[in-house]
């Protein structure tokens, strides 16, 4: 009987999640142009075959891996360091904890615009400081060079996202019993040993959940790239979700865009399964 109590939730989930997913899957099998809906035709796996031959897809896919691993990895490291520092006792800790959340609280479009101006070739503060310090001899067009553009955007997103890890890990750190550290100190453990043998194992679950969630978000994020370079110069900052968006939005090729989005979804499914398993384990315990 209690199973039926879940029915409304299941129906709502089906309505807002499963139906759009099914629609996307159906669209991916059609040659559907938004401005020519009457001539939509079923092409089976035709869109996927075209994707396999699409140079821009492969460029976007490889850059997506750099994007996800670089951004999530560095956000995690920075967040971990910030959390460890904020877990220490110092007189302005309350203020520091509030300040660290600011980047996370800002909208992505604002982050994109802010960093675009910081990187600006003529007027940007980054070139200005680097020139004054003598680190560079001439301004660098950070966002117009294919060798720097992707990393420049990644830096902006790392800055925006590290507070998520900092706050999540800090919450985890505060659940570690003080007795563990006291015992470790009595046993003569150094600070480094305490970190690796006490702290990290104690918050492993928190870290894993945060990493899984953030991987999904970063893999899907495209707003900062769209604002900062629009995917350029050339295809230098194209990632898979951005490419899917451009094909669906600019080209209005909803069928092709849906097929690209479906491939991204399938790739993220492994991460989603891991996340759901962890969440289910949490419920069982």
């Amino acid at each position, binding site marked *: 009987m209690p199973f039926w109590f879940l029915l409304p939730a299941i129906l709502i989930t089906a309505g807002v999640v499963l139906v759009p997913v099914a629609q996307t899957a159906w669209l991916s099998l059609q040659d559907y142009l938004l401005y*020519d809906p009457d001539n939509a035709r079923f092409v089976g796996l035709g869109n996927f075959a075209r994707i396999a031959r699409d140079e821009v897809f492969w460029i976007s896919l490889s850059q997506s891996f750099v994007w996800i691993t670089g951004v999530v990895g560095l956000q995690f490291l920075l967040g971990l360091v910030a959390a460890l520092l904020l877990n220490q006792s110092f007189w302005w800790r309350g203020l520091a904890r509030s300040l660290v959340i600011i980047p996370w609280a800002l909208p992505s479009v604002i982050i994109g615009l802010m960093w675009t101006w910081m990187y600006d*070739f003529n007027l940007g503060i980054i070139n200005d400081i680097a020139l004054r310090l003598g680190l560079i001899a001439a301004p660098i*067009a950070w966002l117009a060079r*294919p060798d720097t553009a992707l990393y420049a955007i990644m830096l902006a997103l790392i800055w925006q996202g590290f507070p998520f890890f900092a706050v999540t890990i800090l919450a985890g750190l505060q659940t570690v019993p003080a007795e563990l550290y006291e015992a470790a100190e009595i046993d003569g453990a150094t600070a480094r040993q305490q970190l690796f043998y006490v702290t990290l194992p104690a918050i492993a679950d928190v870290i894993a959940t945060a990493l899984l969630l953030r991987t999904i978000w970063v893999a899907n994020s495209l707003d900062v790239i769209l604002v900062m*370079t629009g995917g350029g110069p*050339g295809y230098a900052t194209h990632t898979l979700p951005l490419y899917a968006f451009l094909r669906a*939005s*600019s*080209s209005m090729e909803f069928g092709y865009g849906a097929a690209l989005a479906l491939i991204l979804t399938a790739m993220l499914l492994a991460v989603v399964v891991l996340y759901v398993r962890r969440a289910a384990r949490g419920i069982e315990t």
Partner: protein
Amino acid sequence: MERRTFIKLAGASALSIPLTAPLARPAIAQGATTVRWWYHFDNPQHSPAELVAKFEAENPGIKVQAESIPWGGGNDYQTRLFAALVAGNGPDCAMVRLSWAARFQQMKALAPIDDLIAGWAGRSDIADNIWKLNKGADGKQYYLPLQYVVLYLYYRQDLFEQAGLKPPATFEDFRSAAKALTKADVSGFGLRGGSGGFDHWGPFVLGGGASFDKGGMLSEKALAANRWFVDLTLKDKVVPASAPTDSFRQIVDSFKAGRTAMTIHHVGSANEIVGVLADKVSAVPVPRGPDGKGWTYFGDESNAVFAVSKAREAAFKWCAFLSTAENNVVLNKFTGQLPIASSAAKDWTLHPKRFVDASAASLPFAASLPDSPKTPDFIARIWPANMQRALLGQIQPDEMMRAIEQHFHG
């Protein structure tokens, strides 16, 4: 009255009710027609409320529901509009661009409005060449012109005078001037390789002989013109290093900051630039190609009445109202573009005269992009990606032209 006569009269009256009822229906039962209009202004603080109130006072039977839609570089507005029309929830009329016309026609979203335009008194107040530019591919009129801008060349008067140069009239004048003005921290030309940059490419490549007709991007003249344009960056080095991704904001700010000596834009940025550079800046039409022909982008904004509208005539009335002299001036105060009505343009004082003159002088060779459903994708995706790769030396300029040719003609 006899009983029988009364019954006859009553019966006759009862039978006549269905015929007379429509005429007898009181006027109060007729609700006001509502016109939904989508628009976008760069400055979201500007509101058309004043115009709406004036129109509603002049047309008591019509209510205008003006809905501001985010522009998002054009893509957001366009996608939302098409999606709303496909979903059957589109507005009655909306601000539109010429480059979208072919897509609208493909989805049969527009119906000709020639009959309504013919009966509109303000028709003759709009120049014939603008009506011609606004025509659909089949010669019918689907759009009602609203405002326009024409791309011209901004140049630093003071720097040109110091260097003993005249404003460039030909491509070679332009390249020589750009080279002469390029110094350590100043570039001769603020080239726009990012979003919307086709309007910098057009004057030199379309003006140099390329066309959107089949094979038009691959003719010798077209390929040579594109190589020449790419060489401004790769060989002549007269543009800033950031040019491949520079967009509107970057080219205007660099010009204002004295980092570039020339750039291409329209009257919409004139007041902002004059605010910083005052008399140091002026404008001329973009340079002409070797054969004397020129090409510059006609930046349009029109209103379209959609075929599904149940208030077609009321929607047209509202659009016509906005294109009528006095109202057109008020609207253009909000948008910063030029009024479409000739009588309004005559006494236009919202921009310095030299920029309005440069716009007018450019009109004879101003053109829009092809009336093709593939044009918006060319603007947003094909041109920037290939142009940027060519400017960075990742592909040859001819490869870029092949990509454009393939996009339009397969």
